[in-house]
């Protein structure tokens, strides 16, 4: 047998993560989404350094300037100014931190707590599981925005309160997704096999179930980021969100509504910003979902 000097290719099967990554890269829209996402992340970090002006500074000589490509616009105020003379571009950049950056943070925290709680409820059985299930159902019935609004109303308007409110509102969604994923895997035979091998609950969880639900969790996280962005922006739009001096895209849009007839760019530009960031996340989420499905069969 010709073994030692084999003329056949070595078998190197890529790991699941590599497979998923390979599939992900083959979807152009997902890659575009990823690029936009990365750009937004970078912008959130370096916003103070690249913003041309301070977002709160009111340039009284440049009120309601249209964006620079309009004949009346100026390049100095790239995307125009609002009725108080504040530069929209700078506001937009600082808004990346508020709307985009804080939603990332909020989602990660909510994911952490929600997943742990979801695991506990998913792996519990009997009466405890039933009760947790019902509590979950009841909390999920309350629309997340409503929950966030009420929490802000109770605790007052500030960036931290808004973040906390949206975070608490997102936790049930993670709980439910994790719970469903765990419940789906638990009765499967490879889990039974592990239990028969002598694994206790904790071991079953970490080594057997967790790797298999990771994909569902990652997809859920990307979806949750887009929900968080829209929730924070909606709260801002309803003026129950982040309070005045902090730049936030939803608040910018709400401010622009009064000016809609004379200066529509005050509405369009923040709206576009929200739209683009949510679209990017959704594209990444879609790409991940498909890649996971193809990569893991």
């Amino acid at each position, binding site marked *: *047998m*010709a073994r030692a000097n084999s003329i*056949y290719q070595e*078998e190197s*099967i890529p790991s699941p993560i590599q497979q998923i990554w*390979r599939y992900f890269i083959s979807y152009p829209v997902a890659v575009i989404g990823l690029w936009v996402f990365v750009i937004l992340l970078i912008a959130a970090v370096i916003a103070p350094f690249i913003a041309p002006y301070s977002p709160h500074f009111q340039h009284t000589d440049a009120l309601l300037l249209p964006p620079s490509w309009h004949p009346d616009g100026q390049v100095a105020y790239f995307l125009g100014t609002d009725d108080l003379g504040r530069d929209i571009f700078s506001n937009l950049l600082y808004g990346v931190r508020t709307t985009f950056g804080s939603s990332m943070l909020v989602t990660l925290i909510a994911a952490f707590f929600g997943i742990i709680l979801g695991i506990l409820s998913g792996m519990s059985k009997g009466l405890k599981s039933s009760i947790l299930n019902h509590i979950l159902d009841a909390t999920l019935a309350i629309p997340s925005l409503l929950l966030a609004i009420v929490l802000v109303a109770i605790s007052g308007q500030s960036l931290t309160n808004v973040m906390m409110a949206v975070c608490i509102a997102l936790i049930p969604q993670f709980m439910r997704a994790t719970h469903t994923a765990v419940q789906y895997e638990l009765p499967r035979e490879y889990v039974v096999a592990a239990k028969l091998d002598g694994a206790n609950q904790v071991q079953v969880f970490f080594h057997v179930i967790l790797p298999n639900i990771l994909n569902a969790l990652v997809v859920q996280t990307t979806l949750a980021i887009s929900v968080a962005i829209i929730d924070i922006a909606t709260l801002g739009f309803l003026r129950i969100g982040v309070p005045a001096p902090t730049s936030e895209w939803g608040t910018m849009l709400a401010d622009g509504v009064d000016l809609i007839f004379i200066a529509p760019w005050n509405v369009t530009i923040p709206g576009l910003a929200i739209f683009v960031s949510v679209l990017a996340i959704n594209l990444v989420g879609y790409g991940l979902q498909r890649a996971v499905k193809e990569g893991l069969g």
Partner: protein
Amino acid sequence: MPLLDIRNLSIEFDSPHGRIRAVDRVNLSINPGEILGLVGESGSGKSLVAKAIMGILNERWHVSADRLRYNGIDLLSLSAKERRKLMGREIAMVFQEPKSSLDPNDTVGHQLHESLPMDECDVSFFRRKKWRTQQIKALLHQVGIRDHEQVMKSYPHELSEGVCQKVMIAMTIAYKPRLLIADEPTTVIEAGAQAQIFKLFRKLNQLNDVSILLITHDLEHIENWTESITVMYCGQTVESGITKQIFEQPYHPYTMALLQSMPHFDEKLGHKSQLTALSGCVPSLQHLPIGCRLGPRCPRAHRQCVQVPQMQESHGHYFSCHFPLIDQQEPS
């Protein structure tokens, strides 16, 4: 003229790793009234071949062949509509998991109603339902289901796999096909029902002159129920000929290994001795060997095996191997 004539059938699909040729230039032919067995391990592509004949592969798969003819008609050149007409009328297929091949949310009786041919119904409109029920009753009795009322009222998940498979066969013979493709029909079925199904096949073959393409990996079934066989390994045809001849004297090392792997319990096996099997395992689709795909595992492989061997023939016995076992003795 063979009823089904396949020459150099290749089935490929696109993956991120490139275009993978799952089935590589397979040859097959069935004569009218013959039972042909298509043997191979799981993953050898036998089901793909069956589905390609039926035309039910989805768009991901690309089918090409020098010849894919049924009764002289070139299947690849038919339009979708013409193909559909041929399916179910002349060629029928029975699947591996009969329970999941039935609509789970519909009663068996209703599905049988749907699959009855209505062209030959010359009964008036009002008597149609009764006529249909009678036809179904006759079909179910023909496949060996006595309690037709109970079966017709049930949903698929309430019946055993054996009964479901018989129902599937009943659905297919309603149209009196000439060729029946059975894709691992008894793999999930309990032993008692297995024999019944095979007897049913033989009855169909002898009484109704139905040719059968029996796809299986079980060598005992092949030995008992088929007249000729084709052996496939990893998407390539390896050997084909009359069953008895091949079982007595296989020419291809893979066939030899297959036959040797059947344990014979009438001999004394040493305590904790190993069962004979080829070393290694079936290559994955992403890393198919070039040339003869048995190469890495074959005990008789040499450098020449990097080229795909030509199909040779000797007394009606086809094989493709550079180093066939022509001068060997019979397997034990």
